[in-house]
């Protein structure tokens, strides 16, 4: 399983821009996105909150296609993250 961390700027409740970090992994043709929480689990690791399970990439015209590989999946999420989550 390949995985990367992607940063994203969002706006919080006070109107301030904040950075959210996402663990983005790819396995067997499916992209899985989890928000990296600041809360720790029992092992002292940051908790991962599942956000998105994506078995295909959506194309700009509304159609869809399979991810070619992990890089293709990561590129797709990076391009569309502000539109989808």
């Amino acid at each position, binding site marked *: 399983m390949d995985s990367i961390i992607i940063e994203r700027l*969002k*706006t*919080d*409740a*006070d*109107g301030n821009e*904040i950075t*959210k970090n996402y663990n983005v992994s790819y396995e067997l043709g499916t992209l899985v996105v989890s*928000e990296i929480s600041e809360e720790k689990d029992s092992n002292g690791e940051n908790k991962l*909150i*599942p*956000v*998105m*399970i*994506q*078995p295909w990439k*959506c194309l*700009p*015209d*509304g*159609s*869809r296609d399979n991810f070619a590989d992990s890089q293709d999946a990561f590129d797709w999420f990076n391009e*569309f993250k*502000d*539109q*989808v*989550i």
Partner: protein
Amino acid sequence: MAVLKTNKYAVTTAAVIEDPIPTSNYIYFQHDAHNKTTFAPQFDTWIQHNTSGTGITNFGYNAGTNYYMGGTLVLTGNTTHVNHTSVAINDWQCTIDPSPFVSMDTTRPFAWSKYYTDGTNTSVWLSYTQMYPGSVGFATNFEYKLNPSTDMTKTLPTLAGVTQTNLGGSQASNGNSATFPVYINPNTKNLVFCPWTNSNGAGYYIPYRGNGAHAGALGTANLSASNYTGVAVAAQTIQFLGVGTDGYATFFGNNYDSDYQQTIWKYNDSATTITTLATITAIPASSGGGTLSLGGNRAATFGTYFPKLASNTFQDPLLGSGTQGFYVPFFDTVGNYNPFYFQWTIATGVINRNINVAVSWGARTQATTWGVDTISASSVTVNYGFQRFVVNETFTFSGTRYLMLMQLHGNGVAYDLYPLMRTFVVFSMNPTNPLALTYHSFVTIPVTPKNIIWLNTAKTLLGVITTNFFYTYSFTSGTGWTLTGSLPYQMWAVGLDSTGRIFGVDRGLTQQGQIHIITLSVPVTVSVTPAQTTYNYTGSTISSTLAVSAYDQSGARISTQVKLVIDGGSMTFGGSNLTTTVTTSTVADLSVAISITDGGYSNIIASVVLS
């Protein structure tokens, strides 16, 4: 129309709450129970809003003044609320109630008073808006009751005053938002919400959207664990598209800083994750011009910061069973209205956006019929982003599907001097080709329309709420929309109860609500057909029948009293009676006996008996 009651007591509660429990026959004016059918007061009986059953507890929001809830209706049918606090343009108080449009699924509409069951457990949800006080454009909160008794006078709330905070996750930090419960997932039993606006803290940027939200066990458990995936998504409206074959909700997001970007996704309320079905970012190419779109990304002169809502769904005539179609407003590079036609295959979630919808205006032109709002603010960093919007809505009449383009403004005066901006335009859809629309008719609202309410399920009766009048319209295929009533009241809410009666509420003398029952003046057609076209009278009385039916303006049979009068000397209704009053049937012709007693002509005059 009749004024049913002027509420007199300074308490925090809705003007009217309809008991949604099927075994209940109560409706509540403020706290007091009345018979739902006759409106007769019930002795010493009131709705319980207190979780411990002691005392009489408020319902709704109170920021120090009781009457904030006095303009609200909590009914089981369509209900639209309107804020009349400000007539300024670009003011957060002009934010429009989106509830008439949040569900595109006609089988799963949002209702402010709702009863849910999974066959074993039941729950009641009373939603209410708190749009009047404070600095919130529009927001909703809730009271719910788990496994209620036979009515809400005997049932204590499980939890009253449920706020968005109780709906959990990071949504808690966006406490002033509007979230609408839309259905129970048949598999997970979760109550699923359409997270419409998500005001963004101090700025209250609206509309925002969430990805989905739910509460467990018919909405009555694990509220704090309900999911909200991160901070809301900016620059998109959200509508509930429908339910997939797997039971999960599908939502439709439309950008309002462009016309061509849409996102459609599935919300898994079991795993609290989403799967994107379509992320459309392609600027549409020209389809050729003429009746077809020129495509492109329209210039700001044709409207900026421009929320646009999609129509209800209907079975797609091109793909057939298992698919749904809907229209989304699109204005091409020169501002021509050429909506997108979307197709959704429910089982697979496959989305297809058609950009080549032809709009034929016939002898008219768009420029002389309809005008886009160019006077509202264009900035996105404002808290009044939903003070105006465009929506196209679809309905059928006598087998023909129509699409109506509407533009609303929440301040109630913005379009007064601009008739084209307050004109609703109707197009007919080719019955086999949804990509072909033809201009049908238009109606210009007398003043700025603040919001609408559909007054019947068929959407052929329309109410338009303005600052000082409530207008009613009925639709026919021949003339389009016809104004049938103008009620000189500033309605804060208009809604339907479970029997289809229309309630309105203005603030009244005490600001606690003056409750109206609104009776529509609608055309009724009476059909009287003799069993034979001619009778040959030879000196003996001939027994025969008349087939009598009455139809409403939509062509549906109705049961009503019809007075029949024979004008002539050759026929009677029995004995020597020349008049009779009959009650028509909702399912078949009514057979009325007649006797031919002489030669010559007789006319039969029919009239509806008004009660």
